[in-house]
């Protein structure tokens, strides 16, 4: 990997984050009623509003406010939550850890299930197994997370079956099996959608590769089918699949908002919904930036991994 490639990609990520930070800031500026109204409530007198606006620096031009806010973010000063009276950075840090556990569980499950399913579907193209996997994938992509989650709760966490808790969170450090029981349904909900999508993409990449000339050449020279798959087909289908997974992190981050809300999982999604309901601006801005940062970083990592396994990308 050339240093130039790395530098270009890093610069692109920084630019993305700058755009997002500006967009988030712009949204808060357009919001009807500024932070002063939100702190004091709608019955505040004009004098009170003026005093709080002065203290928060809301009377300065927007460009000064933006640079001030951005500078604070860069130095780790993320402001105070308007409702909870706690530092935003601390709130986000603990929520982030919980969300990361949920997302990682879902992502590992998906990778382990979806890629073999997709490969199997491509290799056995046109058979009943392929059709079944395809159908499953379509159903998965057509179910919104809140429907999957609600149905899972009804059938697996109801008072009659009671196999899993219907919501809540247990730290894996305190009670590992309790954590496993609680993470099962939310991670399952997230996995269903992602498995469907990634299995479909893997199948289509693999089908392209299997129809290529070099796979035909490998077969014609008499290689065993297993060797054709392992040596020629798989490495070439891997890079696009990694790209798809990294794009799906975007879906995962969106899905996590709904899933955490439904299963009462104390992560970033739940924090965001709480902040949105209470118009807690500093928390909204912080969570949005963190989610965008995670997405941009995961795209960067996947680009670097792809460049590592595929020399064509590096020199392009």
């Amino acid at each position, binding site marked *: 990997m050339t240093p130039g490639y790395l530098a270009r990609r890093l610069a692109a990520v920084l630019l993305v984050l700058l755009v997002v930070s500006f967009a988030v800031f712009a949204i808060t500026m357009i919001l009807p009623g500024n932070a002063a109204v939100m702190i004091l409530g709608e019955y505040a007198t004009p004098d009170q509003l003026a005093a709080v606006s002065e203290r928060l620096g809301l009377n300065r031009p927007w460009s000064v406010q933006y640079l001030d806010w951005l500078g604070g973010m860069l130095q780790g000063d993320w402001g105070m939550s308007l409702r909870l009276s706690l530092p935003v950075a601390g709130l986000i840090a603990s929520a982030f850890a919980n969300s990361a556990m949920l997302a990682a569980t879902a992502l590992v499950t998906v990778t382990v299930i979806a890629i073999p399913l997709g490969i199997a579907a491509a290799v056995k193209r046109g058979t009943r197994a392929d059709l079944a996997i395809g159908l499953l994938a379509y159903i998965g992509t057509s179910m919104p*997370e809140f429907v999957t989650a609600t149905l899972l709760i009804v059938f697996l966490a109801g008072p009659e079956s009671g196999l899993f808790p219907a919501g809540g969170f247990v730290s894996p450090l305190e009670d590992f099996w309790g954590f496993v029981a609680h993470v099962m349904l939310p991670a399952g909900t997230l996995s269903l959608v992602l498995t469907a999508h990634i299995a479909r993409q893997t199948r289509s990449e693999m089908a392209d590769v299997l129809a290529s000339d070099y796979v035909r050449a490998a077969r014609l020279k008499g290689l065993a089918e297993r060797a054709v798959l392992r040596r020629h087909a798989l490495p070439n289908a891997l890079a696009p699949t990694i790209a798809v997974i990294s794009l799906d992190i975007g879906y995962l981050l969106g899905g996590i908002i709904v899933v955490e*809300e439904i299963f009462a999982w104390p992560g970033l999604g739940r924090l965001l919904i709480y902040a949105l309901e209470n118009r807690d601006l500093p928390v909204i801005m912080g969570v949005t930036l963190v*989610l965008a940062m995670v997405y941009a970083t995961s795209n960067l990592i996947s680009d670097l991994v792809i460049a590592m396994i595929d020399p064509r990308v590096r020199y392009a």
Partner: protein
Amino acid sequence: MRDLLRSPAGLVGTCLLLLVGAMMVLGPLLAPYDPQSFHPRARLQGPSLAHLLGTDQFGRDLLSRLLHGARNTVAFGLGATALGVIIGSIIGVTAGVIGGWIDSAIMRVLDGLLAVPDLLFTLLIVTMLGAGMGYAMLAVSVAFTPGMARIARSAVLSIRTREYVLAAIARGESWGWIIGREVLPNAIGPIVVEATIRVSFAMMIGATLGFLGLGAQPPSTEWGLMVAEARQFMFRSPWCVAVPGVAIALAALGFNLFGDALRDSFDPRRRLR
């Protein structure tokens, strides 16, 4: 069109879309009951001859609510996508045709906006504008704009250097004429395919917003809101959440299958496989 119906996916997708379309057009006429009238003696019932899909916690007929709600849920998806596609295509096509630093600047901004997940983007905008169907629809279409703009731009870039476009530039035609008469008709295929699949996403996001209480408001018959309202009673009567939930999934499935079949019929290379 015949190609579309030949593949099983296209056939099922088309049938589902016809069903959804019929519900949208005829739904309120076919509904056996008033969707808002309470039947206190028949609360939380399973399917029966009187109520084919059962009743909710107020004894409202679920089939009637479902038939009335089709307009809300599906029209939401269609409207939000159409708006997003139009705005996105205008931006993308303009960027692709003009090129140069304007193109790069627009694309960098779009890259930034694409780093915000669709649902998060929509939630932010809805918070800014306020809850309600109209605002939610606007929010989804704004969230769709960057993605559509990218697709429109890449479709345009592959056409931009063709001889007929170069000829139009050499003739000294105006940009508006080149975009409208030369580029757009040839770039429309990928845009339509992407739009069809996005309708299912828009519907799902709309239902999710209804579910979270940020989209349609009670007593609307929007399907996501129906799931949210019935959640309290879901253990006593799974029907209340299952009926609207499955309806959303089937409608989304229809658009997904139809969109994929449409893509295959536009792309002869895929059709052969």
